C-alpha cells in the first residue's frame, strides 16, 4: 500500500527549461510544469522519447537549472542556489540510470562507497554501510567484483545500493529498467517497491513503458512536448485516460480489449451477441457478470479479454458471447450496464460500434 503521507516533497512551480538548440533555435525541454510529488509515493513520469522526462527529473537534483519557474525539494527552493550549495542537496537525493553509470575502475563495494566518501564517512563506517546495502539489494557476494563482470540486473542493483547509501529521502530513477529484459525488469521494479515500502523513500520513476507505471506507480504524470498533459492516480489514468497520448500508452500495457479486426473475427466465429464488459476494483471479478447473466437466463461464454492489476487493483475487461432469447439478452445487457461499463459489438448480421471503437492495437 502507498506510504504517502500527502505532504509535498517535490514541487514544480511553472518550471521551465529552455536549451539553446543549434543555429539559435530554442528547445523548450520542460515547458511550464506545475506538479507536486507527495512524500512516500512512487510517482511515475511517462512520455515518448524527447518529451522532456529526463530534463524534468534532472531539475530535481539540479543537474539542470530551471530557466524560469521554481523547483522546491523538501522545503528548499533550488532556484538561484550556488553550485556549492547545491552539492549537499544532490547528495541527499539518490539517482539511478538506464545505463547504470557505474565506475568501471571500482569494485561493486567501491562504487557503493563512493557517495559515502563524498559525504565524508570514515572508512570503518563505510565498510559497514556498504555491507548493509549490498545485503539489502541482494548482491552481497559480488562486493569485490568489477562491474564489467556483472549482468544488467546486477549492475542496476549496485546502482540502487549506491543511490541509497546516504539515506536519501528521494530516489530518482531515469529509465532504470529500459535496458533490462522483462524478467530482470520485474525484479528491479520489485526492489524499487521495497525501497519505497520498507525505507519510506519517495521514488520518482521516469519511463516510456506503461507496464512500469502499471506495476508500481501510485500516481502518474503523462508528458508530451515538455508539458504535463495528464496527471492523476495511476488507476484513474489507466481506467479513464483523457488524452490521446495517454490512451496510446494505456493500450500498450493493457491488451484485454479487442481491436476492430479482432471483433470482426469474433462476430463471425460466434453466432451470439458480442459484448465487452469492464472489470475494475468495484466489480472485482467476473462474479457480477455471471450473476446478471444467470438472472436473465442468458448463456455467457468468454471469448476474449483479461484481468490484470493496475496500481495493485484489479483492472481489465472480458469479451463475452451472449446466447439466449433476444429479450433476455437485451435485459441482461441493461443489467450489466448497471454494474459496469459495457461495449456492445452486436452480431455478425447486425454489427454495432463505430469503426474506431476499441482502439487499433
Amino acid at each position, binding site marked *: 500500500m502507498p506510504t504517502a503521507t500527502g505532504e509535498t516533497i517535490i514541487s514544480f512551480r511553472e518550471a521551465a527549461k529552455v536549451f539553446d538548440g543549434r543555429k539559435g533555435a530554442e528547445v523548450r525541454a520542460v515547458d511550464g510544469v506545475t506538479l507536486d510529488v507527495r512524500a512516500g509515493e512512487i510517482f511515475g513520469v511517462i512520455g515518448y522519447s524527447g518529451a522532456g522526462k529526463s530534463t524534468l527529473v534532472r531539475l530535481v*537534483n539540479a*543537474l539542470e537549472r530551471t530557466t524560469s519557474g521554481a523547483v522546491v525539494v523538501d522545503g528548499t527552493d533550488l532556484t538561484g542556489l550556488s553550485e*556549492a550549495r547545491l*552539492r*549537499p*542537496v*544532490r*547528495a*541527499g*537525493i539518490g*539517482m539511478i*540510470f538506464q*545505463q547504470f*553509470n*557505474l*565506475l*568501471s*575502475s*571500482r569494485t561493486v563495494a567501491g562504487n557503493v562507497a*563512493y*557517495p559515502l*566518501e*563524498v*559525504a565524508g564517512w570514515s572508512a570503518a563506517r563505510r565498510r559497514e554501510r556498504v555491507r548493509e546495502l549490498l545485503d539489502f539489494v541482494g548482491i552481497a557476494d559480488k562486493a569485490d567484483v*568489477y562491474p*564489467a563482470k556483472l549482468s544488467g540486473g546486477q549492475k542496476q542493483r549496485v546502482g540502487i545500493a*549506491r543511490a541509497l547509501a546516504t539515506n536519501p529521502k528521494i530516489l530518482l530513477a531515469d529509465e532504470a529498467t529500459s535496458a533490462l529484459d522483462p524478467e530482470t525488469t520485474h525484479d528491479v521494479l520489485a526492489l524499487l517497491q521495497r525501497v519505497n515500502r520498507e525505507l519510506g523513500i519517495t521514488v520518482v520513476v521516469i519511463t516510456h513503458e506503461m507496464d512500469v507505471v502499471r506495476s508500481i506507480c501510485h500516481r502518474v504524470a503523462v508528458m508530451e512536448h515538455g508539458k504535463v498533459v495528464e496527471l492523476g492516480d495511476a488507476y484513474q489514468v489507466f481506467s479513464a485516460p483523457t488524452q490521446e497520448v495517454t490512451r496510446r500508452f494505456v493500450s500498450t500495457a493493457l491488451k484485454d480489449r479487442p481491436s476492430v479486426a479482432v471483433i470482426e473475427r469474433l462476430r463471425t466465429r460466434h453466432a451470439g451477441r458480442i459484448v465487452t464488459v469492464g472489470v475494475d476494483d468495484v466489480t472485482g471479478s467476473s462474479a457480477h457478470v455471471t450473476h446478471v447473466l444467470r438472472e436473465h437466463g442468458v448463456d455467457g461464454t468468454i471469448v476474449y479479454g483479461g484481468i490484470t492489476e493496475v496500481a495493485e487493483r484489479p483492472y481489465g475487461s472480458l469479451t463475452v458471447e451472449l446466447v439466449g432469447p433476444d429479450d433476455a439478452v437485451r435485459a441482461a445487457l441493461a443489467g450489466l450496464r448497471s454494474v459496469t461499463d459495457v461495449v456492445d459489438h452486436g452480431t455478425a448480421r447486425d454489427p454495432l460500434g463505430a469503426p474506431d471503437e476499441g482502439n487499433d492495437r
Partner: protein
Amino acid sequence: MTADQLLPLLWQAFLETAWMVMVALAVGGVCGLAIGMGLYLTRPGNLLANRPVFAVLNLAVNIVRPIPFIIFLVALGPVTRAVVGKTIGIEAFAFAMCVMSSFVFARLVEQNLVSIDPGVVEAARAMGASPLRIVRTVLIPEALSPLILGTTFLFVGVLDMSAIGGYLGAGGLGDFAIQYGYRQFDWGVTAVVVAIIIVIVQLVQWLGNTLARRALRR
C-alpha cells in the same frame, strides 16, 4: 676508434638520453595532463564549460603540435633563453622537449577523456561530488588504461625528439650514432645504437601494455 674507447662514450650518451627523456616525460606528463584536462573540462557542455579558455587552449595545442621539432627548437629560442638562460646545451634542449611533449600529451589526454562515458560523470555529480573530486576519483581512474598507453606513446615521441640533441650540443644516443657511426663510416656503431633503442622501446611498450591491461579491470 676501438670498443674500449667507444664504450664509455656510449654509456655517457645513454645517460644523457635517459636524463632528457625522463625529464621531458615527467614534465610533459604532468603539464600535458593538466592542459588536456583543461581542454576536456572547459569544452562547451562539460563540467567547467568555458568557451574562451577552451578556445585559447585548443588554439595553442593546434599551433604547437604540428610544428616539426627541429623547427620548434629554433623558434622557441627566445623563450628558452628567458627560462633556462641559454639556448645551447642539454638543459636548453630538454626545456624545448618538455614544452613540445606537454602539448603532444595534452591532445592525447583530451582524446582519452572524451571517450569516458559522460553518464559516469553525471552520476558522480548527482552524488554531490565537486569538480576537483570528479577529476581525481572519476576522470583519471576511469581513463587510466588509455592514459598509460598514451604515456607509452609519449615516451617513444620524446625518445624521437632526443635524437636530434646534437644540434644544441645536448649529446645523447642520436648524437653518438651520428658522430661515431655516420661520420666515421662505422656502420657497426650505428647498428649498436639502433639495437639499444629498439630494446628500450620494446621494454617500455611491454611495460605500458601490461600496466594498461591491469588497469582495465575487465
